[in-house]
């Protein structure tokens, strides 16, 4: 099982949230593998990654994660900046006919309300 399949499996099984899965996939992205990964994920996830990449903070951001030290947060932020650049460059270089329509891509829009509270 590839890293991408494993992350998507965690999402399907409810082990992670959609945003967590998205960030985990992004953390795995490099300029070298971005095309391969974007082709491997479902279209709605690819569209979410494009939207996420468009909004990756360059600096002055906070890194959200429980039990995350500032040092580890800084490492994650740097990795995500690289991933964001990779996705944006990939989008910019993609033929227009390949742009997904983004159906159902707004992450969280169909998430059920909280249970048991």
């Amino acid at each position: 099982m590839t890293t991408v399949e494993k992350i998507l499996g965690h999402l399907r099984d409810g082990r992670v949230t959609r945003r967590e899965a998205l960030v985990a996939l992004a953390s795995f992205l490099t300029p070298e593998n971005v095309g391969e990964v974007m082709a491997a994920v479902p279209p709605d996830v690819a569209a979410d990654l494009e939207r996420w990449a468009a909004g990756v903070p360059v600096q002055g951001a906070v890194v959200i994660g429980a039990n995350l030290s500032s040092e580890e947060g800084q490492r994650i932020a740097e990795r995500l900046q690289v991933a964001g650049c990779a996705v944006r460059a990939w989008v910019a270089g993609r033929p227009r006919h390949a742009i997904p329509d983004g159906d159902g891509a707004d992450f969280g829009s169909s998430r059920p309300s909280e249970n048991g509270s």
Partner: protein
Amino acid sequence: LRPCSIDEALAIAQDHGVAIPAYLRFDLCEEFVPANAYASYLMLGSMEGNTLIRWADCLNLHGQVPVHLRPGVLESDEAIVAVFAHEMHEITGLRAAFGGNSGILPASEVYRLISPDLAGNLHARAVEIADRLVLQMRGR
């Protein structure tokens, strides 16, 4: 030492007074736990401080907050009680903060509430609670 299951861990935590609400889910998911931590949740990455986070963004497909554990946590009753109590108290407080603000908080506020680098926040309080429970287990 045989690691226990998640269900066994939940029972151990409950035996020591840590009642886990139904909106929390614990799983072994080591790749989502930061270095030097035993557990994590809400690994949302970098955001502008004024980005709004919805409580719904903290939930999985089943409407639960997924908490990610390192396998080593399940090898020790003390670790189970400390980690489950810590995350339960932190997330309960976070949920109340979201609830008090129409289910939406800016990323900067979420950071302020859960960062281990800031004093006096939900994380710091959760550390105190977990430490106290472990001392109780040791009969002190």
